[in-house]
């Protein structure tokens, strides 16, 4: 894979926000006078909070808050079937009404947030724990057979998208949250590996790494002490964006019946269950749909914002973003 393509693939797998260029091409730097190209003026102090970061953070925070709060309190038991409250209109303790089982929609949304975060955290965790070290290894030994092997396997795993993996895993081990998470996680590994590799390649040519290598430090030590801390920001951004993708994947899987098992509330399944009532009670589809969209939006914005916030090299382009 060529450098340029890899960069774009990275951008893609980062889900991203393409408005920025992960790393200038070496040797193509522009010797421009800063003030001659006003788009690139310095003078934007580093690490400033931006609107995307704040909005994304707020949305994600809201999801997290709902999830945490649901452990201690929900207005009603989200799985309690109550025939008397079937399709109850919003109001009177039922903030958003109740579904056809008489379960409180608001409570379900709260616990659903928990499911969403759970799926995201585990899936992204799997991807990060597997993908990042592989990417670092591949990046630190760019010419070695190990690197080649890792990247080839990576490309192969990339050919098994999350949905396909989940259907296959679901077929073997039965559908459920765990299989969905593993499928999404494994399918996301290549994205992490790629991003980690690209970032490692950049870090490896910096002076302090060269110095550390010259000083005879061994590779694992360099990886842990120097490389990981320096690519952490890239990984965090990738995690945020992967999180958004995981949420969408979980929703699609729940829709197909390969996701979270009933009666554990999940936004994807709420949406699926609300389908037959779309005509008479559209609000049952509205709320989980909105929740999914806002959570995904939140994580995407957070990823973009973090990218701008954490990586000073990219920030200058934000003006146009």
């Amino acid at each position: 894979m060529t450098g340029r393509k890899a960069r774009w693939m990275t951008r893609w797998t980062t889900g991203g926000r393409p408005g920025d260029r992960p790393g200038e091409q070496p040797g193509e730097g522009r010797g421009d006078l800063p003030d001659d190209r006003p788009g690139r003026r310095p003078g934007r102090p580093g690490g400033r909070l931006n609107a995307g970061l704040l909005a994304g953070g707020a949305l994600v925070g809201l999801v997290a808050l709902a999830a945490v709060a649901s452990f201690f309190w929900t207005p009603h038991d989200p799985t309690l079937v109550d025939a008397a409250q079937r399709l109850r209109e919003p109001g009177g303790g039922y903030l958003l009404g109740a579904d056809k089982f008489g379960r409180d929609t608001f409570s379900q949304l709260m616990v659903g947030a928990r499911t969403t975060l759970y799926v995201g955290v585990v899936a992204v965790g799997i991807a990060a724990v597997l993908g990042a070290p592989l990417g670092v290894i591949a990046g630190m030994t760019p010419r070695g057979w190990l690197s080649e092997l890792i990247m080839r396997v990576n490309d192969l795993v990339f050919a098994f998208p999350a949905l396909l993996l989940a259907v296959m895993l679901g077929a073997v081990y039965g559908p459920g949250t765990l299989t969905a998470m593993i499928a999404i996680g494994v399918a996301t590994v290549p994205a992490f590996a790629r991003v980690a590799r690209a970032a490692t390649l950049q870090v490896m040519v910096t002076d302090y790494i060269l110095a550390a290598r010259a000083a005879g430090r061994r590779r694992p030590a360099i990886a842990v002490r120097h490389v990981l801390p320096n690519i952490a920001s890239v990984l965090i951004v990738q995690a945020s964006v992967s999180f958004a993708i995981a949420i969408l994947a979980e929703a699609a899987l729940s829709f197909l019946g390969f996701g979270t098992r009933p009666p554990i509330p999940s936004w994807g399944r709420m949406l699926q269950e609300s389908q037959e009532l779309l005509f008479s009670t559209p609000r049952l589809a509205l709320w989980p749909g909105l929740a999914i969209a806002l959570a995904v939006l939140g994580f995407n914005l957070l990823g973009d914002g973090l990218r701008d916030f954490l990586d000073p090299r990219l920030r200058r382009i934000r003006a146009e973003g």
Partner: protein
Amino acid sequence: MRRIGIWIAAGGLLLATACGGDGGGTGGGAGDAARASSLSVGFVAEPANLDFTSTEGAAIPQALLVNVYEGLVKLDQAGRIVPLLAEKWDVSGDRRTYTFTLRPNVRFTNGAPFTADDVVFSLDRVRTDWKLKIKSQLDVIDEVEKKDDTTVVVTLKRPSNGFLYSMATRLGAMFSRTGVADLANKPVGTGPYVLGSWRRGDSIRLAVNPSYWGAKPPLSAITLKYFKDATAMNNALLTGGIDVISSVQAPESLQQFADPGRFVTVEGTTNGEVVLSMNNGRPPFDDKKVRQAVRHAIDHKALLDTAWAGRGQLIGSMVPPTDPWYEDRTGDYPYDPARAKELLGGRTFTVKMRIPNLPYAVNSAQVVKSQLAQVGITADIEPLEFPARWLDQVFTKGDYDLSIINHVEPRDMGIFADKSYYFRYDNPEFGKLLASADEGTEQQQADDLKQAAKLLSEDAAADWLFLFPNLIVAKKGVTGLPKNAIAESFDFTALARQP
């Protein structure tokens, strides 16, 4: 020492999901004339192939029986056995000899005439070639004999009330001696329809059999269109993609079809008992008190209302109201959580509820779980793909505590007499009652079966959540819809469309 009267249900389990498809191809290009004389009906389960002699499942007989294949007799809408390819039959005094007089001048769609030889061939073939275990229902046959071209004599080993009934199912379907080469893809029967085309994953088109022996059906073609998603099927009817939903899978959505100016809704009954199965063979449900507690813990009315929009009937045992020996047993275990707790005596359990991933089961399971939680039983729901995984895990291996499945086979109370059946119910007295019912007179049969149903209910061998309704929605003007789904087939022969 055959156990008789075991009406194996496995095949029929599928029916629970049938739905209506698009008149399909006609939705588009076909001209008005063609459209007027054809209909499309939405179904849920598409056949994997067209050979019901070797493949389980309700989808194949649902599409082909009576429509493409015919038996000597068939079930009418009231559940009575009426003549079809046999003009009449006589039963000997000892009830062991059945003499069928065949309809003359009947031809198979491959051109071969239908004669007594084909009857002998078909019934022998059940024993020799069929791969389904339900073929044991015809083990009671001692001999099939051709008397002349239009007369066949069947001799039984012993009297059996079940024999003639079985002959109305797929077991009695008549095959041509020269038409069984490719049953999976090319069915050859004597029925009013022939297989027109099959677009796998989408639809099956049945065309009228031009050389049919009887009255030609009103429609020239039927398209059976298959949907995996209830909402998609509803939408298809709403937008004119199909004309009939053969079985509504999302009863909540019925209100979309409330406009009598556009749609007609038929609500009838089926043989489908939605059973909350309890594994009698292992703790905690090997304890009759625990099973009884479950029956008391479930508010069946509330369950029906929430899980299936109140459509369907409450039943208390394994007999649907359309069977002659039906008795109302819904009062045996009234909703009484206090009594349930008393029966449990303070014990609490965590059990596996492994259900098929079908709408009625998933809906019901959530209600059951919630209600059982009130008396101290925690049920973990695990939906399994239906049919394969559910059949493998629950039905075959019996690895479950609770399950929910619609037993759609007609007259299937006998499944409880097989202690290897996944209920693992073992009560010799029940088996005796069934055996005596099959051999006895009609009156004796009814008495015994009533007794058996009562025994099942009292033993709490299972809980019966509700009787699955036959819900059909069609465009206004479609007539001839079968009100009750009590046979294996969806009978298209009377279907018509008013201009």
